[in-house]
């Protein structure tokens, strides 16, 4: 298997031999990136605290916990759910989320009859404000190539076996609209509050490769 398919971390350790790389010397990406940052700071093109703040934002503040709140709200508030399905980005902004890769977000509702799953075949487009940066598998060549031609096989790899009566809708994010799935509210979650419900909403369930957790699976 290529380093690509096992995530970037492993790739980092594979070192040089990069045909086509515009450098004279082969070097470990970690070292190369340090050199790049050092020069850009020195030349005043970037500030260290800007990079710090961006890293911190996408490591800590901007992630699937945001989308989970959106989903939980939609589960308890029918009027919000309607606004969310009608204009995702605006309804998401009501909860304070928005920004890069979130200008247009469309929310797709899973039902007993229709299961939605999101992919980006041409690159790795993803709704950053609600889900953060994509996980490695979403960026993998396997996920990008296979999801449009054999979604049921892909979902089975994620442990999700759908009945043949369910329509699988695959959304390929080729333009400026980003997609997020509104998973079905799990049975047994009646009477739970928004915060508790948000704990049931996983990243994978908002991409469409999994269902939301059932309460028994949480407690």
């Amino acid at each position, binding site marked *: 298997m290529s*380093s*690509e*398919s*096992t*995530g*970037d*971390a492993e790739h*980092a350790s594979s070192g040089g031999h990069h*045909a086509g790389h*515009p*450098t004279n*010397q082969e070097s470990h*990406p970690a*070292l*190369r*990136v*340090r*050199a*790049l*940052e*050092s020069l*850009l*700071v020195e030349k005043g*093109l*970037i500030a*260290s*605290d*800007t*990079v710090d703040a*961006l*890293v911190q934002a996408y*490591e800590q503040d901007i992630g699937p916990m945001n989308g989970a709140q959106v989903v939980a709200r939609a589960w308890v508030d029918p009027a919000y759910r309607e606004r969310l399905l009608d204009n995702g980005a605006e309804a*998401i902004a009501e909860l304070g989320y*928005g*920004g*890069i890769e*979130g200008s247009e977000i469309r929310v797709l509702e899973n039902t007993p009859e229709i299961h939605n799953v999101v992919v980006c*075949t*041409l690159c790795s487009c993803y709704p950053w404000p609600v889900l*953060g*940066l994509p*996980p*490695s598998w979403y960026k993998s*060549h*396997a996920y*990008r*190539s296979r999801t449009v*031609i054999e*979604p*049921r096989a892909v979902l089975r*790899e*994620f442990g999700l076996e759908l009945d*043949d009566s369910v*329509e699988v*809708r*695959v959304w*390929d*994010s080729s*333009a*400026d609209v980003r997609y997020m799935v509104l998973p079905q509210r799990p049975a047994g979650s009646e009477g739970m509050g928004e915060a508790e419900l948000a704990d049931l909403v996983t990243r994978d369930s908002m991409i469409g490769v999994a269902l939301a957790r059932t309460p028994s699976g949480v407690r």
Partner: protein
Amino acid sequence: MNTGGTLGGLDRRVGQMNGVHDMGGMHGFGAIPREEGREPFHAEWEGRMFGMLLALGSHGVHDPGGLRAAQESMEPASYLGFGYFERWMWVTERALLAKGYLTLEELDQRTAELDARPDAVAQRREDPATTARLMQGVHTRSPSSREGSSAPRFRSGDSVRVRNRHSPGHTRLPRYVRGKLGAIARLHGIHDFHDAAPEGSPNLPQPVYSVRFEAEELWGEAAEARQSLYLDMWESYLELAQS
């Protein structure tokens, strides 16, 4: 996002229409890798690279809208062999070299210096005002819809045929739908158009539609049961199908 300008000399014409990045429907990439390490950054350098990429964009050093096209100008074997953040590193280096912000010699020299002194403390530069302005954009929505002058040609339910386009240059029209029959599901509004345009000709905003395809139309007998596919398509990708 800003879509004017070029990425350090790497404009959309260097993107590849039928490139290896256009992998929808391809076979041979194996199982989906599920092991997860630390996400989203598996190593510190990935985070720094990502942060630099966004920081440079806010300075106008590159055009964020051209980043997809720039990646496509990578040699195919490298595109497949590189990891996600390595591709950004490649694109960023190219942009900085092309715009003259850096020379390859100084980058190589600095790399060698740091290699020799692994414990060297990085020089820092603080710019709280710029950081605050940039972080505002990270957290605040700016809609990408445009005001349209021309009325959309298609209506929901219209049967459309995707044009069989194969011109070199960047496009957002994946190969697996070209020539296929679909149906307009919804109008998304008027959006900037990102495809490569002939030099000097403007890329005017166009209506973008969500178009539904049945899996049988795309994949023939290989299609799975009850699958549909939705793709966002600019109006110029489509023509009304003879019914």
